[in-house]
């Protein structure tokens, strides 16, 4: 394969500069860092495993009727009390057996995904916004504002997420998905604030930010155009991993009885199942496995995304 003549013969300066980038067609196209990360992700099997699982869980949450036609609330105590799973009956109500009230464990698990997924996503969205803004202001403006915001972050860090959530939720007599979201977001934004603050401080010192300041760019432009896009990668990674944590915390709260009420949820089902653990372990194990698979998928996805964005691995 012949190398194309790289530098056209012309004047000393401009021609000298003008060697087209070697490397052929794929480099002649514009490739952003995001596109590079996507290329990296595509070749990572872990990404695909976690992505497929997550799509499945999202589908369950969005259209549970796709997976089962059984009503999760339908109880048939006489016929199905703690019915054993029929592992061969795929997608049938008795696939994973029945619980202590004669409800289909399969149907309940499918419908339980919705609470977990909604809470996971909403809390993550909330903490990313709250933590991101706090971290960005603390990191960019520094000084007294940073000191105050950082100490505030430290104080909240002192409160365990679960404990804080419990105390706050006690105040509500009627608890819906949204109260749980509020409680978890209130005590869960700190890691995001920290990551954002660190990333902003790093980017703030970058030469291209100095260059923008030298051009006379205002604070808004510097923050939104130069700093924010360069801090997204670490924030996305931390947020993805945190999402898993929120899902499991929600389940824990529901298990403890101070989370969701009268909603189908993995946490509530796990909580109910502990009474019959000896007689029918499947009642507990099935929602528990779905829960840990969801959490695991998010953590794996976060890892894969981090690897893709890490330029050192390129």
């Amino acid at each position: 394969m012949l190398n194309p003549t790289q530098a056209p013969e012309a004047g000393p300066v401009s021609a000298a500069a003008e060697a087209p980038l070697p490397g052929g067609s794929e480099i002649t196209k514009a490739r952003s860092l995001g596109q590079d990360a996507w290329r990296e992700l595509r070749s990572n099997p872990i990404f695909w495993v976690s992505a497929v699982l997550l799509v499945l869980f999202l589908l369950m949450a969005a259209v549970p009727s796709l997976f089962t036609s059984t009503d999760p609330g339908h109880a048939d105590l006489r016929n199905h009390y703690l019915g054993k799973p029929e592992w061969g009956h795929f997608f049938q109500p008795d696939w994973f057996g029945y619980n202590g009230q004669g409800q289909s464990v399969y149907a309940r698990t499918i419908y339980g995904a919705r609470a977990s997924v909604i809470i996971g996503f909403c809390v993550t969205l909330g903490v990313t916004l709250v933590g991101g803004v706090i971290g960005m202001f603390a990191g960019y403006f520094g000084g007294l504002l940073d000191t105050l915001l950082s100490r505030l972050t430290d104080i909240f860090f002192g409160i365990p997420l679960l404990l804080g959530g419990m105390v706050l939720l006690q105040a509500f007599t009627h608890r819906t998905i949204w109260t749980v979201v509020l409680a978890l977001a209130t005590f869960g934004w700190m890691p995001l604030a920290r990551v954002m603050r660190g990333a902003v401080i790093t980017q703030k010192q970058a030469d291209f930010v100095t260059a923008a300041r030298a051009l006379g760019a205002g604070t808004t432009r510097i923050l939104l155009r130069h700093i924010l896009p360069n801090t997204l990668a670490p924030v996305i990674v931390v947020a993805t991993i945190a999402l898993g944590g929120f899902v499991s915390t929600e389940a824990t709260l529901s298990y403890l009885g101070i989370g969701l009420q009268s909603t189908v949820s993995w946490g509530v089902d796990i909580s109910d199942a502990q009474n019959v653990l000896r007689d029918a372990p499947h009642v507990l194990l099935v929602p528990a496995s779905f829960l840990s698979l969801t959490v695991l998928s998010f953590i794996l996805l976060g890892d894969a995304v981090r690897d893709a964005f890490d330029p050192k691995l390129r």
Partner: protein
Amino acid sequence: MAETEKDDKAVDVTKATEAAAAPHGITEVTTVDAATEDEAVAALDAEVGSGEPILQVRNLVKHFPLTQGILFKKQVGAVKAVDGISFDLYQGETLGIVGESGCGKSTVAKLLMTLESATAGEVFYKGQDITKLSGRALRAVRRNIQMVFQDPYTSLNPRMTVGDIIGEPYEIHPEAAPKGDRRRKVQELLDVVGLNPEYLNRYPHQFSGGQRQRIGIARGLALNPEIIICDEPVSALDVSVQAQVINLMEKLQDEFNLSYIFIAHDLSIVRHISDRVGVMYLGKMAEIGTDAEIYDHPTHPYTQALLSAVPVPDPEAREGRERIILTGDVPSPANPPSGCRFRTRCWKAEDKCAKEVPLLAIPERFAGTDSLAAHESACHFAEEKDVVHA
């Protein structure tokens, strides 16, 4: 042009040393007192004749406070990064500033760009002190003084395309943007710096170091500035690419009538590109003069040591040269030596050097002579010594 300026200057300096009041009487500053913002902007956009001073720096000081404590910070000292320097930049010339790391040369660049606020002193751009400007007048200054950075890998936003990077100055200064097609103008700029105009939509990481530096230069040119401050613009580049970029910068200077302040540690490159050169040591200007004055007739011992230490790519020229090997390291700028700052490493140092700060002026023994040694040098015992030629 710079030569004739120097003669006037020489007279000024002798007067100044006699008066002993004004430490460095370089050219006189004709200040412009603008009553309104409009007047200020108009004065800043006025033309300056070739060879006239365009930038006049007077007693510029920057101290970075050293603080202790977490919530209540108290100052425990200061890093004297720049400690009273004065110099002029003439229209159309290149002023080189050399010195070792920690001498304050990069801080000077930031001060001139108003990226840092000066602790004391003035920077007169066309007669107005830019350290005191704000609002539209400051924006006008920012338009006219641009910067090229050292590291082409960090000075371009990795998330923006080349077109967005070079076009950003127009978004920030819409008043200076070309009427009509901005994209076309950006492509023209790419062509001017020797890059393919088709590269508009690519991202910085798709380019090599030398090409990225060209993008940085194109960004600096976008607003048609008068002064470009170059902070080590080629030191991060490969040897074979450095010459390309240096040649490009010289070409652009002629084409766009630019004045450069060229900050670098590589003395050979500075000599090549500069009309005049200032040597900095620990926040002070040790010596300043035309390139021949500094390189062929240095009178400050630090300049002599610096020049003699430069490795010359010619083993034979090397052997005949005298080398002055300095002992020790540069002292901390937080706690600089009393008197002359160079005295702790100087082989000529005497008691006087610890007590009296030497002024930057033409040494008395050379004053009034035609010798090229008659240029400003801040040494009590200035004497000529050729360390460059074998």
